[in-house]
């Protein structure tokens, strides 16, 4: 399986993602934002970080970079695009995914483990995954998902909500919402469910000496589904 990780100026989880993808069997390459295109890939990843310093709005400036048109085309043709954290923010800014990520409700950066409940398994990312609740790590200042009522309705109607913040038992109530996100949304799909944007960082949880191992589960499952 081939993957491409796109590096924007200010990306800082690009290496972490590269390590994770390779660990689970992807042949990964790093792509510079100023390139017009990327080589044939089974998965394109927009990594976390602070592209362009998160200046103006997070993800907004990266959303205008040269490579983005190819990403949009690739996504429209059904290619798998995964945006983690800042990558998710970029995907909403380009309009590939609806809504926007606003500042956390407590206006503080949060770095900690959270639980998320998988809301939909009829897609390449979560099909066959053995757990319903994952323990993942978040590290962001703008993870407070918001969208219009119409967008929300369409997300719900099409089962496009991918993961929701919850407690270890799977309760998705507001007490377990770290950042104020609408409906505890931690990640969403596009209509075709080939594009996934999510705030948690599975690439930071790929061995037992780190914050946990549910990231391993995510990547193992993903590459399994692509084979």
């Amino acid at each position, binding site marked *: 399986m081939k993957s491409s990780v796109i590096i924007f*100026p*200010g990306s*800082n*989880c690009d*290496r*972490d993602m590269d*390590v*994770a993808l390779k660990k689970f069997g992807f042949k990964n390459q790093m792509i510079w934002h100023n390139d017009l295109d990327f080589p044939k890939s089974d998965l394109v990843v927009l990594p*976390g*970080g*602070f592209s*362009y*310093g*998160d*200046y103006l709005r997070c993800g907004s400036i990266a959303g205008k970079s040269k490579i983005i048109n190819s990403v949009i085309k690739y996504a429209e043709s059904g290619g798998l695009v995964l945006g983690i954290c800042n990558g998710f923010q970029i995907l909403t800014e380009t309009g590939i995914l609806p809504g926007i990520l606003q500042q956390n409700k407590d206006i*503080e*950066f*949060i*770095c*900690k483990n959270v639980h998320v409940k998988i809301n939909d398994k009829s897609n390449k990312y979560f099909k066959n995954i053995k757990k319903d609740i994952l323990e993942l*790590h978040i*590290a962001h*200042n703008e993870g407070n998902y918001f969208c219009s009522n119409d967008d929300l309705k369409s997300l719900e109607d099409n089962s496009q909500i991918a993961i929701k913040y919850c407690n270890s038992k799977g309760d998705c109530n507001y007490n377990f919402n770290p950042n104020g996100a609408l409906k505890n949304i931690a990640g969403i799909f596009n209509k075709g469910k080939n594009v996934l944007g999510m705030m948690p*960082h599975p*690439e*930071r949880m*790929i061995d037992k*000496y*780190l*914050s946990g191992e549910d990231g391993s589960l995510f990547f193992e499952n993903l590459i399994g589904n692509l084979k």
Partner: protein
Amino acid sequence: MEVNEKIAIDHGLSKDEFAKICKLLKRLPNITELALFSAMWNEHCSYKSSRKHLKNLHTKGKKVIQGPGENAGIIDIGDDDAIVFKIESHNHPSFIEPYQGAATGVGGIMRDVFTMGARPIANLNSIHFGSPQNKKTKNLLRGVVKGIGGYGNCIGVPTIAGQTCFDESYNGNILVNAMTLGLVNKKKIFYSKAAGINKPVIYVGSKTGRDGIHGASMASAIFDDKIEEKKPTVQVGDPFTEKLLLEACLELMTDNSIIAIQDMGAAGLTSSSIEMASKGKLGIEINLNKVPCREEKMTPYEIMLSESQERMLIVLENGKETKAKKIFEKWNLDFSVIGKTTNSKKIELYFDNSKVADVPIDLLAENAPMYERKWKKNKLPQKIKFKKENFKSLKISDCLKKIISTPNISNKQWIWRQYDHTVMGDTIQKPGGDAGVVRVHGTNKAVAASVDSSALYCYAHPLTGGKQVVCESWRNLISVGSDPIAITNCLNFGNPEKEKNMGEFVECVQGISEASKYLNFPVVSGNVSFYNETKDKGIKPTPSIGGVGLIKNYKHMITMDFKNKNNIILVIGKTEGHLAQSVFAREILSEKKGPPPEINLFNEKNNGESVSKIISESLVESCHDVSLGGILIAISKMCIMGKKGAKLNNIKGLTNKFDYFFGEDQGRYIVEVQKENLNKVNKILDENSVHYEEIGEVTEENLTYNDELKISIEVLNDAYTKWLPNYMDN
């Protein structure tokens, strides 16, 4: 403008210093030249009050690749790997503008590290604030934490540990000390010493603006009521540009294009250009019209003094300009050849086709003043006797709950949760333990780091305090299973022109030196911050020590959370019950007098090495050093972290349980050992003549001591964790 004595004094120079400049030059300096002198002869660059004493620090060791004197210190961690690290203060700017002050502090220390060719792999911080009751404290704390996070998070370097302290002596002078560790290949280290004549001198990074002019002199000025006027000297940090600068520099460093490189920190272009030339015993010529400027009509004076952030100065190998330019342009950074090295041994500045400064380098560097400030010795305070009847009405559980919830002991998660501590995917011990630990990427090795200070001890007796901080750093590193290698130090003190403050400085340095020598724990880098004083009130002497250790196999790292019930809890090191200067004395008995706990370097070393030994034989389940608050606080934290209880025994020969539980004797550790390993552990400890006690065992729930103490871990946890978030919320 004709320079005169008054103008010189306005630039922070003394009358005598100005006279000396005129004599050395054999003429009056012009205003640009005066700017060079004022920057270079400033305390911040010249270390004129401290240099004499810093020479006494212990700086050598087998693993030291680079000691003090470069941008940062470097230690060997085996194979071809080396760790570059340093701590630096940004106290004054952070008091004036907490967010930007703290942020640019973090930015500055990271540049010191990557300028040597290292990729930063961990940040730490030591922050000191005034009393929580002080009106300013909350906003300063909030701003500083946001600033540290704002910069480090954006760059993508994990902040893995730190230290936070509150004391009224910081009401008007907070301390913000930032530390960075970087990883470098031993064979690819870059230094700031220029070499060779006619080599291009290039400027890269952000443009130069009018910000921070006089920042270096402000860093050494005493605050007064006119603080407002000094305000515009705070700079705004641009972490995004720093991230680009980091990547661009590392990209250029993959071959040998660079002869010397130096970041533009305090005193910007002035100190960077002069230091590079001075170290290489060369001259340097700069055309100031070539310096990329952000603002119109900047004068040579302004360009030389600007402290705009995110800039570097590089001496390149001839013919490498095109290659370098291409890299910096790829990263969207300014690049300009601004001058060349010469054999004149002078700094020569040109602007609009005329020469605007012409000064021999050695006058600015080696000839900078060095003072033997007067200082007063500090006597060891008299011992105090704590009267038995004072303890009569006290209950252990009340004392425990009170002490564990005091500002200086309670949990600081509210702070470190705002720092990205997991980016880079190698953090294996997060903040909250005795030291932060990151793996050396792609290897089995890991590096542990901790930062400590003990202003109360240092204030009570600077010599003991100085030793104690070094020992505490050493203990923290041992507790996580690492071999301590070396330290960096940030010496935050009051006004050196006052004998008392100077005495505190001299004796703390002496203490640091003694301990680091004895423990073979050399100082490889550091920074001095004097004049932490507002309206005549100075801070308590506060040396911050940043220690670094190596774990050969990261799988053998130790954490402090209790692991399993029925395991035995040992206290290693002797408990005498020293209460003076303890949190117990202060908080429960309202007693602030008396000497700090004594440091016995022999025991310190012996205990530490013995703990290391049992850890290396895989006999230890968890370990935590005993620091503020004493044994019972240490054990409580291990319970809280492990969500386990502990049953404590009646201590043999114990005279007073308050002394025993809350005394702050030094050189002690708590370790958790499996029952079946106990004999082996005892044997090793006995062989090394280490004093130890079996104090109890790990249980499923509750912390108990006979029938005198029974407290649930939830209650303890609440007491430990609630203070800071509640304080910040109200």
